[in-house]
């Protein structure tokens, strides 16, 4: 079988080889680069979509968090307000109850004082009356006659008054 020389030039062979390279270029373009690029593009798209979804979910979560935070804050404020209100009311209640009690106590004291004064007065009067009566009886017995009750009263009263003043002054 014939062989070529080590160095030989043949135009047709050169052309065939040129066309071979072009053919292989087309083969690679169609069967390797196009499908791979298509797949890469698709992957890029799905990744973009996934990222977008993740971003959307994050923003939603953020907004929800913010909302919940604000809600919590308002709830806190409300609770505080309620507590304050309750405290105020309790304070007011305490005040009124205290006032009432004080009033009552004062009244009772006053009543008691008045009662005591009244009793004192009454006892005084009674004692006066008794002294008068006793003195009148004693004087009757001593003198032996009826004294004018009216005059007698006046004398004793003045005496007792003097005594009472003396007594008050000592106190």
């Amino acid at each position, binding site marked *: *079988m*014939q*062989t*070529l*020389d*080590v*160095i*030989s*030039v*043949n*135009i*047709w*062979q*050169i*052309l*065939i*080889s*040129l*066309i*071979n*390279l*072009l*053919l*292989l*270029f087309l*083969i*690679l*373009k169609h*069967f*390797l*680069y196009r*499908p*791979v*690029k298509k*797949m*890469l593009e*698709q*992957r890029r798209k*799905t990744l973009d979509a996934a990222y977008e979804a993740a971003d959307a979910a994050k923003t939603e979560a953020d907004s929800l968090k913010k909302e919940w935070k604000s809600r919590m804050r308002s709830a806190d404020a409300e609770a505080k307000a309620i507590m304050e209100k309750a405290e105020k009311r309790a304070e007011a209640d305490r005040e009124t109850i205290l006032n009432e009690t004080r009033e009552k106590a004062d009244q009772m004291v006053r009543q008691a004082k008045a009662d005591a004064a009244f009793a004192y007065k009454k006892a005084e009067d009674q004692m006066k009356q008794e002294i008068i009566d006793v003195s009148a009886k004693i004087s009757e017995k001593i003198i032996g006659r009826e004294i004018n009750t009216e005059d007698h009263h006046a004398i004793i009263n003045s005496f007792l008054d003097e005594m009472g003043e003396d007594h008050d002054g000592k106190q």
Partner: protein
Amino acid sequence: MKGKNHSFKIKDILLLLGMILPLAAGIVIKVLTTPASDGIEITGARIFFRLKLPVQDLLITESQVNSWLVMISILFLCLFLTHGLKEKAEKKRQLIAEWIVEKTDDLVQKNMGPYFAGFSPFIGAMLALSAFSSLLSLLGLFPPTSDLNIVAGWALLVFLLISYYKMKCGPLHYLKSFTEPVSFLTPLNVISEIATPISMAFRHYGNVMSGAVVSTLVASALQGLSLLLLRWLPGALAKFPLFQIGLPAVLSVYFDLFSGCLQAFIFAMLTMLYISGSFSPDEYNAYKARKKRTVTQAKGGC
């Protein structure tokens, strides 16, 4: 679902067979057409077929057939790699396919700029064809790259592309570019323009061919050496190829494996540099704007 899986696997096997069978066919052809002789000789490709054509006879040689076999193999390789592509990469082959595409894209982007981004399949084809052609010698086949005609065809295509991109800014601009920087350098410019494809072709061809020549010379020298040393042994033992065991393999690793891939890379690199150097997008845009202006002026004149 199971039937689908089954057909998927069958298709896989068919594609793999499509990759391997051409190479096996190449080996079979080689074995059938090689005459039985133990002599080591340096020749070009075998001629299988001769067709009468006007300028020169069309010769279908071993190198043509082998490069077609390589192309078929690459076609099936592509089909195999892209078989069952999914958005979520499940298979190793998909990763390999993506790696190839991304690497060549990167290479082209870096060396040629974004204007030539569409060149990545071309550069990929060039790399694949050149590297696989050179690597055919590992199978004991005739590497098409050690035939000048094959590489010259690629270099011619590159030359055409260079010229096309230089012409893009108008034929006048193209012709004027030869007289730069000084007009008396025109012959030198023309020579360097023509020398580009020739040097590319001869660089690639010469490297692969010289590798084969050196390998052959070393192998025959080792054969002589072992004959010389074992001459005194009786019978067939005297012809025992003692030194031909192992040693040529080291050379093969360098000349076939390393040099083949390196030459493919160099060829692709030079292609990228020449093509991108022959064209500047700025100049082209300026040319287009100028042309547009003249057109509108002509219309206004009418």
